[in-house]
């Protein structure tokens, strides 16, 4: 869970600029520098597991 949470935090931090652009949230609100740590602490405090996005694989023959 630790690694996943940190990766998710990193990912959201990377996307912070994208989130800020359309006015959804400001970088100040997201606080990317501390986000991973806060997400992990939140998950630990609430006994939650981190769910990564489902990855659908697709294959076919032509």
């Amino acid at each position, binding site marked *: 869970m630790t690694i996943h949470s940190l990766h998710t935090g990193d990912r959201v931090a990377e996307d912070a600029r994208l989130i800020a652009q359309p006015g959804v949230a400001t970088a100040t609100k997201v606080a990317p520098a501390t986000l991973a740590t806060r997400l992990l602490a939140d998950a630990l405090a609430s*006994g939650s*597991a981190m769910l990564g996005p*489902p990855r*659908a694989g697709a294959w076919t023959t032509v």
Partner: protein
Amino acid sequence: MDYFAADRAAEDERLLAQSRLVDPATKRLLEAAGLAPGMRVLDLGSGAGNVARLAAELVGPNGAVVGVEKDPEAVELAQRHTSAPNVEFRVGDAQTLYGIEGGFDAVTGRLILLHLPDTVGALRAAAARVRPGGLVIMHECDLGYLWASPQPPLWSQARAWLLEAAEKAGIGTRLGPALYSLYREAGLPGPRLLVEAVAEGGPAAPAWAWANVVSAAVPLMEQVGVATRAEVEPETLAGRLLAEITDYDGCVIWPPFTGAWAVRP
């Protein structure tokens, strides 16, 4: 099988067919969790017996599996489909496990917590039947995930009917993703997790499986006032769902199953 159960023969067929869809993922879960030759396993809510039979393959002739199931007719069904001498099915309550001895090397359960009024209590009761160092393995699904992609009108309607009926009846539909928290609440270590889903498009898409689930829930839907049998039309539902998703060039997603396993301290 308290909540989503229609008539007996249909329920038996539903149990067996749907079990086969998930069996490969359950087998991978049991292997990842470390079910090994010689172990003695308790299977909660054994239903048609698929999980017990998968466990029996892994524990081998020197191991044993005891399945506990509240429904005597499901116990008979499981017995009819099981030839291994080291698998036993008993009528019993997975919620309390009254009368079930302790000391098992592992406890398993698939789609059982969904049907129990006190999931955390059931996990505690299950863990109490496992020796220290033994495994607690659960496999539950997420009925709230996408049922198909895209989600055409009939698929959206069928999903909404089921989820609304479940909500009104107080039935949890997202037990899979909740397993980690449930284990912790039951005083168990945080479990390892494995999530898998079956998805398929085209004529082999398992629209029939969702039709089975929705059809079996018609009595509940009528009871809580969500939909009538005439509206659901169970007799033609599978065909209509398949036709619609095929028309949309879409795929059917059988719900993601979360496997969880932890070692009892």
